[in-house]
């Protein structure tokens, strides 16, 4: 995956966390993910479609997610509550939307978020799509942004020919 695709996500998570709840994010060395297992117990997931396809996942340990959601909402929620999932979904939605705006390509759409909570869940990405893990260190704990995107070349060629 092109490094130019990763930079918007680095900027986006830093921007969202600092603007919404003044939490600095230190970015680690991005690396390729080699299995389907979720990195942490809480996954906020956004689907990407259009000229680029794939998924964006904000993966957080339960404890870190709890602290971040409390900062974000000003309230403490049980992980089983709808409010907790809603807040996780809104975070990944803002990160994805913010990153999308930096892409040099038009015609990229993002889905409404889904949230999965539980130990050892798996997240399948399209086969042949590399997934890059971006480790992020915060005062609330370590979180990871997982970016699995590829250009939808076949569709682009088809629509260009039409």
């Amino acid at each position: 995956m092109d490094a130019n695709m990763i930079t918007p996500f680095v900027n986006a998570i830093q921007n969202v966390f600092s603007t919404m709840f003044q939490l600095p994010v230190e970015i680690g060395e991005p690396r390729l993910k080699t299995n389907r297992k979720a990195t942490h117990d809480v996954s906020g997931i956004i689907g990407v479609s259009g000229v680029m396809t794939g998924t964006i996942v904000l993966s957080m340990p339960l404890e870190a997610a709890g602290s971040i959601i409390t900062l974000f909402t000003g309230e403490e929620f049980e992980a089983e509550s709808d409010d907790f999932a809603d807040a996780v979904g809104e975070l990944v939605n803002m990160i994805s939307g913010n990153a999308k705006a930096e892409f040099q390509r038009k015609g990229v759409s993002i889905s409404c978020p889904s949230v999965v909570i539980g130990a050892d869940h798996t997240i399948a990405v399209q086969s042949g799509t590399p997934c890059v893990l971006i480790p992020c260190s915060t005062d609330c704990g370590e979180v990871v942004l997982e970016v699995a995107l590829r250009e939808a070349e076949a569709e682009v060629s088809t629509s260009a020919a039409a």
Partner: protein
Amino acid sequence: MKILLIDDSKTMRNIQKSVLKQLGYTEIEEACDGQDALSKIGAFNPDLCLVDWNMPVMDGLTFVTTFRQTNKTTPLIMVTTEAEKARVIEAIKAGVNNYVVKPFTPDLLSERITETLAKCSVGS
């Protein structure tokens, strides 16, 4: 001053509600998508709507287009993650009066609300 918040995220509605309360606006109704908003808007008759773009059932742009067919004057502010210039232009053409990109600070949202109400001459 009656304000309708239209966003599928309760978290986001609560954040916006807290900003509105700080500005002294307490008469607030909530809707979780465009269709829910259209079903509530007649009875509530808001002086201002804050509208998200990406929502299930009916998105914000469809809501704005539908609402503007019968109401040309009630101020609408799009509050969304959609930040591309083309999207902003699309929303303005559909009839929104102002635009706020998420993430936002409470100060920025307050500023845009005040600015929109002044521009549209809505009394408080």
